[in-house]
């Protein structure tokens, strides 16, 4: 008897030990994703949260105070410190505090001038003229000169050694210094969204390869130290050009790969800020810390391969749109905190987003779906395999809900849980699938999520092929103002919905745990942890 009991307990122990492992695997797959997002340009993301919780955000009361140290928990190690060569999103969100470009992202999705004081664009849209801000200093104490700007832009555009470090910048043909405070950039084609690329970091002239060991920028914090596997420490830049910022003296980014450890550290108060919470973690932290929530920069969807039977029939795809109950998905996988979407645009990009949820409704319309299936010649439904990357719990759960919803209209769907790596190769690269549930990351350029659906795009993994769409997209490329582009972007979103290209579902919320005595945490529509505005409130 004893023996069986001991076998039993050992297995129990083993299972507890495995609990720890799952936690950490989950986390590491998350950082894999972030890395992959940038390196393979896959833009697939983001983990997995489950469950629902009503988050009470208790805003701290009290005046901002200066000073203090904040420890931020991060899920993965960084892949370098050179702002022009790092690829992982998880690294860039930290370097945002150290480096700045001529312009800089703001929390509302716009740009503000940073190293440049203002800029102008020539009539033909081919020449940018940047006036540099007076008195901006590098962390080494030197003033930023036009030489530094020229060097930085030439480095990222490939003019320096032939390899562009930022692909959109390769349209730059010349960087000229007009006078010591004015830099003129000439490009070979009009692109109103190019200005977003001028967020590329300005670094001291000739620093290049040194940046990895000794990063010097102009941001609100300066680099102090980096210990692999442990973390990175940054300190207040007393000479920062924005008066009054930053509040904190020191920020430590501490690498915590296990979700369980992160919870313990948060509860013990050794970590004050922890982003990308899973909903089960939210449950644990509720009432003990502030849990802030904002829409993330991702769009989740039931992606349909438009070139396989029977999904190549638009009526079948529309039937699936009617079958989806997005409100239910929102409730089941995001606790109702996500934003229901119908097309490939982040709702946070308000000037370009158009709400198309009424087209198919946000709850299921079984009669409509069945009628369309009958018209399409599938009155008894069909079999559909949904391939889902198994490490993303939120996508797995979404798929599980969708299987039930499709069953209600007679479509016999099943889930094929696959590894992230096989998802990347089979589904994304080889397009060898019928349907999948995953998410795409957007960025602050509104066209980023839309350009992949042109019939010739290498990123068009749903094989969407619409002449209308290609035509309107051509107009986008030709348009020279963002207002004009905005009109076409809305048209593109409408085409995606009318053609039922793919079943867009949710823009899932990003939840961050913040210590009760901290204020000023800001969400960005891009992948950023801005510590400059964070402060301790006075008691």
């Amino acid at each position, binding site marked *: 008897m004893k023996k069986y009991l001991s076998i039993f307990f050992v297995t129990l122990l*083993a299972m507890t030990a495995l609990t720890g492992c799952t936690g950490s695997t989950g986390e590491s797959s998350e950082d894999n994703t972030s890395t992959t997002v940038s390196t393979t340009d896959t833009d697939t993301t983001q983990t997995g949260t489950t*469950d629902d919780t009503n988050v009470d955000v208790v805003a701290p009361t009290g005046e901002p105070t200066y000073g203090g140290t904040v420890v931020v928990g991060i899920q993965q190690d960084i892949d370098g410190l050179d702002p022009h060569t790092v690829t992982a999103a998880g690294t860039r969100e930290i370097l945002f505090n150290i480096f700045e470009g001529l312009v800089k992202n703001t929390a509302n999705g716009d740009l503000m001038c940073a190293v440049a004081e203002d800029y102008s664009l020539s009539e033909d849209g081919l020449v940018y003229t940047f006036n540099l801000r007076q008195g901006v200093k590098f962390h080494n104490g030197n003033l930023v000169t036009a030489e530094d700007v020229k060097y930085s832009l030439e480095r990222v555009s490939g003019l320096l050694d032939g390899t562009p470090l930022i692909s959109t910048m390769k349209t730059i043909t010349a960087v000229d210094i007009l006078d010591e405070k004015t830099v003129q950039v000439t490009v070979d084609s009009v692109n109103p969204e190019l200005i977003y690329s001028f967020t590329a970091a300005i670094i001291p002239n000739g620093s290049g390869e040194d940046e990895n060991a000794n990063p010097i920028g102009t941001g609100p914090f300066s680099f102090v130290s980096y210990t692999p596997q442990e973390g990175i420490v940054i300190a207040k830049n007393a000479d920062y050009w924005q008066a009054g910022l930053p509040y904190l003296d020191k920020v430590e980014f501490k690498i915590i790969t296990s979700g369980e450890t992160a919870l313990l550290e948060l509860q013990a108060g050794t970590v004050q800020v922890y982003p990308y919470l899973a909903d089960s973690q939210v449950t644990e932290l509720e009432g003990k810390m502030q849990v802030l929530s904002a829409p993330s920069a991702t769009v989740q969807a039931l992606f349909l391969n438009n070139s396989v039977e029977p999904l190549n029939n638009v009526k079948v795809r529309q039937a699936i749109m009617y079958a989806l109950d997005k409100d*239910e998905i929102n409730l*089941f996988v995001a606790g109702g905190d996500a934003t229901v979407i119908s097309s490939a645009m982040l709702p946070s990009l308000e000037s370009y987003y158009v709400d198309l949820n009424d087209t198919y409704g946000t709850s299921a319309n079984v009669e409509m779906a069945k009628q369309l299936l009958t018209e399409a010649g599938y009155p008894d439904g069909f079999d559909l395999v949904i391939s889902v990357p198994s490490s993303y719990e939120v996508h797995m759960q979404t798929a599980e809900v969708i299987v039930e919803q499709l*069953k209600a209209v007679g479509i016999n769907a099943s889930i094929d849980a696959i590894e992230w790596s096989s998802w990347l190769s089979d589904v994304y690269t080889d397009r060898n699938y019928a349907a999948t549930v995953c998410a795409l990351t957007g960025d602050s350029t509104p066209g980023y999520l839309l350009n992949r659906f042109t019939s010739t795009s290498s990123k068009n993994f749903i094989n969407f092929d619409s002449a209308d769409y290609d035509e309107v997209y051509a107009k986008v490329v030709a348009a020279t103002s963002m207002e004009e582009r905005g009109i076409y972007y809305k048209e593109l979103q409408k085409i995606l919905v009318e053609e039922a290209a793919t079943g867009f579902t949710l823009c899932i919320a990003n939840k961050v745990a913040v210590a009760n005595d901290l204020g000023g945490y800001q969400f960005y529509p891009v992948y950023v942890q801005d510590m400059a505005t964070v402060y301790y409130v006075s008691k």
Partner: protein
Amino acid sequence: MKVFNNGKAPDRKLNIYLIVGAVMTGLVLIWAVVGIFWTPYSTTQMSASLRFHAPTWSHPFGTDNFGRDIFSRVMKAVGTSAIISILVVAISAVLGILLGAITGYFGGIVDAVVMRVVDAVNGFPSILLALVIISLLGKGRQNVVLALGMAFTPSFVRIVRGEFIRLRDADYIVRARLMGVNKPRILFVHILPNIFSTFWVSVMIGFNNAILAESGLSYLGIGVQAPDATLGSMLSDAQGYLAKSPWFALAPGLTIVWTVLGAAMLSEGIGKLKK
């Protein structure tokens, strides 16, 4: 193995292990068999209004994050887990008898080679071994059965071999040999029935280990795929909601305890029976 109770009459006390174990295992089996054909609610139908309900009369184990009845899901999961475990034991027991009989009876070079392989395989924890095999074969129900079947074979080989070595020189076997009875008949008609009392105990232990190992694998997400459930995958689903709805984890957890305890007591009872 005859035990002499200092000359006293053999212990005829009630075999409490056997009775309790049989009752517990019997209940689980009935529950599982019923669950395969009928459950009070659908095991996959989701309901937004029924999420995270605490246990009530209509939902004795509560409901889960999709508003599914946990009682129904556990019923179905027990059946799935039991079938997988029975198949695992069947595979490893059959292989164990074949290899154990041959190595135990004949000895020699075959014995040496097979037993060194068995030792090597035994060197790995069975769950690790199963993980390796699954990573080679891929996920899914059949592969879990195959992987665990292979991982569990060595312990059966050892037990069967030991019994065959003990019996191969018994008087009645020596006589059978002298009478010219053919080898398969000696192995499987003359020796095999005499090792069953020991063998059944190890089958029950094997069944227990298979239940636990299968739960472990499903818990790691490489066993049966959603929306089907086994006890392990239900535990894994419930993990994130431990604080919020403890009954979600409690139901499959207690079912595992009940099943394993029942089978363990049953095997103990069988062990006592032969004395």
